[in-house]
């Protein structure tokens, strides 16, 4: 998982040339991180999204003013927190606390990335199609639960619903997706993996 601080190259590229690619990389990362932060601090999903977009709109329009910023990560995090709580300044304690906030609990590990790479073509396209068919709130809650690892309680507060509704919405969406994927594709995958396993096994034996 990329840490914010590792994005400094993208930051300089964006500030110097206004590259939209670099801008999007920064946006992708910080969107996730700030959504996670914002919801954990009890803010509403829409407000969090608006603050993120406000911040990035500002960055885009005032790129020329950003040359002097050395530590982009701290700058972005403090700016976001200030926007979120509508504060002009954070006290020193608040600033320190902000900067020591944890990153998103890890999302896909190396092993998972491997799975992703190998199954990309078939299942993920199908899944993507079905996820696009979900309502925005369903997709968003799955994102909050799965990708960001937030609790049902946090999700319920962020979306102004009860915990039960949060659970049901996610459950229904996941059920829909699971049915849509269907057995065939997953079975094909199992075959592929088993085959790989077999080959590996023979390979090992051969070299013994």
């Amino acid at each position, binding site marked *: 998982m990329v840490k914010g601080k590792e994005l400094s190259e993208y930051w300089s590229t964006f500030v110097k040339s206004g590259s939209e690619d670099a801008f999007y990389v920064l946006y992708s990362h910080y969107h996730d991180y700030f959504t996670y932060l914002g919801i954990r601090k009890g803010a509403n999903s829409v407000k969090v999204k608006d603050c993120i977009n406000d911040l990035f709109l500002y960055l*885009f329009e005032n790129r020329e003013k950003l040359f002097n910023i050395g530590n982009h990560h701290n700058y972005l995090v403090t700016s976001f927190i200030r926007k979120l709580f509508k504060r002009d300044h954070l006290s020193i304690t608040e600033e320190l606390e902000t900067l020591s906030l944890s990153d998103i609990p890890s999302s896909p590990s190396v092993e998972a990335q491997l799975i992703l790479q190998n199954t990309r073509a078939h299942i*993920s396209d199908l*899944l993507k199609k079905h996820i696009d068919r979900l309502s925005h709130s369903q997709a968003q809650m*799955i*994102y909050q639960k*799965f990708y960001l690892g937030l609790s*049902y309680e946090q999700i319920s507060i962020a979306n102004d619903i009860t915990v039960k509704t949060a659970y049901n919405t*996610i459950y229904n969406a996941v059920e829909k997706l699971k049915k849509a994927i269907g057995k065939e594709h997953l079975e094909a995958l199992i075959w592929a993996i088993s085959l790989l396993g077999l080959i590996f096994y023979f390979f090992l034996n051969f070299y013994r």
Partner: protein
Amino acid sequence: MDKNVRLLTQESFLNYCFRRNDEDVRYWEKWIAENPDQQSEIVRLKQLVILMSEESGERVRKTHYAELQTRIKQSGSISEQKSYLFKKRWWAAAAAIFVVLSCVIFLYKGNVKEEIVIQASDVSSGQNKAILVLSNGKSVNLTDGSEGVVADEAGFKISKTSSGEITYSRPNTKNTGTANKGDSYNIIKVPAGGAFQISLSDGTKVWLNSASTMKYPVEFNGKERLVELTGEAYFEVAHNKSKPFRVLSNKQVVNVLGTHFNVSAYTDDQFVRTTLIEGSVEIVANNKKVKIEPGEMAEFNKSGIAVSKVDVEEMIAWKNGYFKFNDDLESTMRKISRWYDVDIVYENTKKYKDSTVYFGGEISRSKKLSTVLKIMESTKRVRFKIEGRTVTVIR
């Protein structure tokens, strides 16, 4: 089956899948070891979890990013308060800031990679630029210089006003006699990357777009008022029943009584377009005469004169300080090339006859070239590269 869906929404299982919590990871690994027949099912579910996580993340991010893009465009199309020649009423212009930007693309054949090219340089928008050629052949550069008298011609004072426009006025009313028998002509040339406004001696106001030239008599002595135009100009003709105003452009003549209209007659376009906003005009070309009403446009091309109802706004958007596109790629690029004074090069030399791309939308003309091109690129149908004063169009 239901049990599995429940598993997918269970926190401990999710923690195991994403390795978020050592305790849960250990629990599930142990469980799998104790239930080896369930292993393949667990593997399937884990993959599903990981994929759902990734894809939902993509979707949410993209949706929110698209919202950001919309906001960027909306704030970009709000005209900057730059001193711009064609703002006649400054305060009205400030109020009229809300230009809605919409990019609508009609897909014919799209085969474009979704990349955006980083520009190495940028080009700023056009400015008030023009050269006035007097009847004695002398050229006066109207671009620089502050307000005041620019030249004297045939008893008229040619002055530049504070708003950057050129006017013809007679200083003393006593000397009217028949002092000027011959006609003196002036020519105003507006280069690519320029725009200019001029008030003729009869009070007619003319706005000239980039790459346009107009030849006109200093004083309208004869039975008619005749001017010659190549390029594009918007006219607000002063009323004079006894002297019809005529615009000659590329073998077409527009007969005017007192009215507001736009003529577009660029030599690299294959037509002359006359759009009427107010009043009444008659177009004469190829021995044919056609009268048009306000809201109509007459297009004179190889096949003759065709009249159609148009969005007048679109035709005179340039005069009001913005581009309003509703054209194919080539026409759009020609407009851009004239205003920004850049050359357009198409990378794949075959012209896209079967896969035309249409652009619709509005953007302030005071924007830098890169801003305009970025907005066109966001339609994902085309890409650009700016190098110096050349724009390469890539599809």
